[in-house]
Every structure is written in structure tokens, then in C-alpha cells.
């Protein structure tokens, strides 16, 4: 088997104007993941680092650049899993950290649980030394514009569209 790292950056109606940066981002993530796999031999390191790269990229809906709640907040979810022993870590309702996937891995490796959400997940982030960013640090101009557009459509349709475009 030839070692391989495959990534995605989300599905939906991706605007033509965004394509060059989107292509660049997924190619960079695949290369980073592959380099890590070659260097460490760890598939878990490979997928974590590939996703870290996309979480840092403003052009993707994860980490910095995440979609916003109706109240303009960032709430992120992530999961990571290794196929050998079916080990897994999951987080939900995570705020103010740039790498939820790394927090999911720490929960898998350093706690007695496999899925933590909200305050409990954030306590682990603090205990594990994650950089807790100031409130609103992950909110981008593009995500605010998307939310404003969504609210405008919601007002026009009288609430028939309950959510914005999927991730």
C-alpha cells in the first residue's frame, strides 16, 4: 500500500472567485499531511496536521473562518479516529481555539472519555495549554457577511429557510 493523505475542504456551491484559494488550500493540506506521514509514519499525525492547515486557512469553514451562529458566535465541532484500535476523540461547541481537531485528539489520548462538549471541552483545552484566543478572534469579515446575507434571506422568506448553506 502506498501511503496516501486525502483531504476535503467542504462541499456546496463554491463560488468561482474562491476557487484559486480553495485549490491552493487543499493542495497545501494534502502535502503537509503527506510530509508528516512520511516523517513520522503516523496516520493520526498526518490527518491532524492536514486538518490543522485547513483550520488556519480563512477560506474554509473550520477554525479561523468558521460559520457563525445566529448570535454571531463561533461554535466548532471536530472528531478524530484511528482505525487500528478504533480509538477516537470528539469535541463540540468549542470556542476561541484555532485547532479543535487537536483538542479532539487530546481528549482521546488524555481523558477517560471520548466525546466532550462545551464548558467541559474548554476546560480540557485550558488544562492542555491551548492558546485561548480573545472572544471574536475567529470571526472573519466573510463570515459576518454570510450571516448578514442569511438573515436578510430569512426575513424575506419569513423563516422558511431555517439555516444557511451547509458546510
Amino acid at each position: 500500500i502506498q501511503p496516501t493523505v486525502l483531504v476535503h475542504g467542504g462541499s456546496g456551491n463554491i463560488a468561482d472567485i474562491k476557487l484559486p484559494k480553495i485549490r491552493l488550500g487543499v493542495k497545501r493540506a494534502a502535502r503537509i499531511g503527506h510530509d508528516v506521514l512520511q516523517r513520522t509514519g503516523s496516520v493520526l499525525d498526518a490527518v491532524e496536521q492536514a486538518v490543522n492547515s485547513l483550520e488556519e486557512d480563512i477560506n474554509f469553514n473550520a477554525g479561523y473562518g468558521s460559520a457563525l451562529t445566529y448570535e454571531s458566535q463561533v461554535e466548532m465541532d471536530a472528531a478524530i479516529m484511528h482505525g487500528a484500535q478504533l480509538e477516537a476523540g470528539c469535541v463540540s461547541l468549542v470556542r476561541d481555539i484555532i485547532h479543535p481537531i487537536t483538542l479532539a485528539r487530546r481528549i482521546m489520548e488524555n481523558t477517560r472519555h471520548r466525546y466532550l462538549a462545551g464548558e467541559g471541552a474548554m476546560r480540557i483545552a485550558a488544562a492542555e495549554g491551548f492558546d485561548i484566543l480573545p472572544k471574536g478572534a475567529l470571526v472573519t469579515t466573510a463570515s459576518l457577511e454570510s450571516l448578514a446575507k442569511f438573515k436578510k434571506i430569512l426575513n424575506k422568506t419569513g423563516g422558511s429557510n431555517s439555516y444557511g448553506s451547509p458546510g
Partner: protein
Amino acid sequence: TVGAVAVDACGNVAAATSIGGITGKLPGRIGDSPVLGAGTYADNESGAVSATGHGESIMRFNVVSRVLALVHHSNCTIQQAAAQVLGEMTKRFNETAGIIAIDHRGQLGIYFTSQRMSWAYQRGAELHCGVDPDEDEFENV
């Protein structure tokens, strides 16, 4: 949503998925991404999958579990399994999704029922990338 799957030379697989959610979601909403078997799963006996798209539908249809079950229990390739399950999901819920997958033999699955899905993979010195259906841009790195 962003995600990654990987396989090493011994057939070990892993999957990771991370998401900010849906624009305008209610506080506390959780989609498919962190739910094992819905948006993320990895098992050396079948493969690794990460999903993207309409989270409520992916979760209700248990998309990733269904894909890996088809690979494990039938002669489906992972690409055929992906196409079948996502086709069924879109038919049942009238919502779209996409997945990336690697089976335990290193075969790839890249399929989406949405208009577009960005993906890329590196295998050896080959770097492949696509966004539109049937697109496969290739370069040597």
C-alpha cells in the same frame, strides 16, 4: 467542513473532520462531523471516511457507517459505496453531501452530490486536486 483521511504502508487508516457549522445555526447545534459513524469513522478492517454537506441529513442517514459497511460486507469498491450511499441520501432527504475515503487496501473514494467539493491527495510524488465533478488536476511535487 474540512477533513482528512490517511493510510500508511501497513494498512493503518485514520480520519479527522473539523467544522464551524452552518451559518445562522442556533447556539448548541451539533452536526454530523463529530458524530462517529455519521461524519467521521476509521477502521483498519474497512477504511476511513470524512463527510461534508448537510449535517442533519448525513447524521440521520448515518452516511459514513453505511459506506464502510458496504465495503466490508459486499464486493463494492469504496468509490462505488460512496456513490451508492450519497445517491440514496440525496434521494431520501433531497439534500447533498460529499465524502472522501480510503479503504484498508489504499483505494480512494471521492464523491459528492453537491455542485462542488474541494479535495486533494498526495500519493508518492503525485498531487491530485479537484473541485468540479470528474475533475482531476495532477502535478508532480
